[in-house]
């Protein structure tokens, strides 16, 4: 049992360092999308919510677990969609010389979504 705790603590500590290391050189213009993106990532609590609802034996657990699944889904779906919407805006500069041709080309792949 203590071994397991130690293993989780190891994972925890290493993740702390990875988390700090990974974003230490982010330009400030990307702070908002980064915040929003990491917001989506902690939506992984949906996996935890599924596990507790899947293990539920009593009505209390069922109700709480069901609520957790809804909230976690809001977090994960909303998080990713909002982030994508923000990042959609960061398009590379399109050559201004021929606006007609370039807009047509960039509009097409978008049609498939939603």
């Amino acid at each position, binding site marked *: 049992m203590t071994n397991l705790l130690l293993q989780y603590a190891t994972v925890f500590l290493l993740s702390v360092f990875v988390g700090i290391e990974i974003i230490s050189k982010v330009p400030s213009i990307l702070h908002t999308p980064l915040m929003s993106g990491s917001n989506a990532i902690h939506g992984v609590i949906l996996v935890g919510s599924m596990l507790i609802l899947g293990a539920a034996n009593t009505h209390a657990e069922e109700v709480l*677990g069901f609520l957790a699944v809804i*909230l976690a889904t809001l977090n994960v779906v909303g998080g990713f969609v909002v982030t994508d919407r923000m990042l959609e*805006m960061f398009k*590379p500069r399109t050559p201004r010389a021929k606006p007609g041709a370039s807009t047509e080309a960039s509009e097409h792949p978008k049609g498939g979504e939603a």
Partner: protein
Amino acid sequence: MSRGTLIDLLYLVAALTFVLALKGLGSPKRARHGNMVAAAGMLLAIVATFFNRVDGHPLHHVLLIVLGMAVGLVVAVPTARFVQMTAMPQLVAIFNGVGGGAACLVSLTEFIHIKSTKPATYVVLEVLLGVLIGTVSFSGSAIAFAKLQELMTGRPVTYAGQQFINALIGAAALAVIVMALVTSSTALLWVLLAVAFVLGIAFVLPIGGADVPVLISLLNSFTGLAVAASGFTLGSNLLIVAGTLVGASGTLLTMLMSKAMGRSLPNILFSAFGSVVTAGPGSGAEQRSVRSGTPEDVAVMLGFASRVVFIPGYGLAVAQAQNVLRELAENLEKKGVEVFYAIHPVAGRMPGHMNVLLAEANVPYDDLIEMDEANSELTTADVAIVVGANDTVNPAANDDPGSPIYGMPIIHADAAENVIFMKRSMRPGFAGIDNELLYNPKTTLVFGDAKDTLTKIVAAVKAS
């Protein structure tokens, strides 16, 4: 390979995508790709979980799980898709809050599930921390949402003995935790839930609207930690890794943001910044002389310029004037004028928010320059146009040690030959502080709605 091992392996892949995604989000080119990678990893983890086993049996209530997901999807997608870009910060706040709520519920439910097996003290501690942090994040985010959505005042809410009372609530939460550890009683868990809920509200109330984005980032990292805590309780490496990644990077991000505002994090959290506004900012201010001009005057001035720098702020977005601003820039460029947009790190309501709002209006990414570069460009600029910004160009941040924003790095609009300041009225900005720049002899004020004014300037520039 057993089913359990395969699922754990898939979880490992998912955790890896989260690391790569955070890495990708740090570069403009790979950011969107990074987000997609994380979403794919998340989907993989969720699908794998359907095949997971708990307590030695396959998941019960699969239909209920799917139903819950469906409800979440139906609410989240349209909300996230169609809410105005200006409302982005409060949207992030609310999606973060529900995540904290979910983490709290997971810890709570797991405790109810295992309490008959007399869990070890450290397991109870994990549960208590998950409930405490998750709930603080939930209620704190709700208040942050209300402040940004203007459901309540954006000004700091203060009352006598506030810090003492907040410390008392914090101490009460700790006391409940200690008692719960000793007795392992479920009732105390509900008490902790209630105390944590109040703590989240009390903690956020004294924080002013301008500082709320930093707060959201902090609450975001709280939710990450709450998720990690539930990961400990459930014994899930995936939750521990993902939650901790967000907790750690979120804390660092929060500090970077406060640094961009030239303030320390404790100062933002505990100083009720902006509440001590000089009484009646209008009264003293309006007696000083300012120079105002018409949109036509501005067009003439721009006609003689060779380098123009726009300094946009949140007011631009409120007036929905981004497109007109871009139109003005295009018309000026046609006449051979060089145009830049100087972006303060905290322009808008979140760092980087202004870039998103301008990008939405198809302003080329390369025309946006960051503060340091902008300040060197401004020394050779003929005209600086301040649209909807205020605190980010306030010289008091440099000159007036008594000012609440003293020490915040600003864009030196007054380094340009001429300054045009578009304002709706003489009202002070988001932080509630009077602006010396308005009285600078270089400054021409143009009163009115930013969109109207810009439209008139565009017409005048075209005509000239």
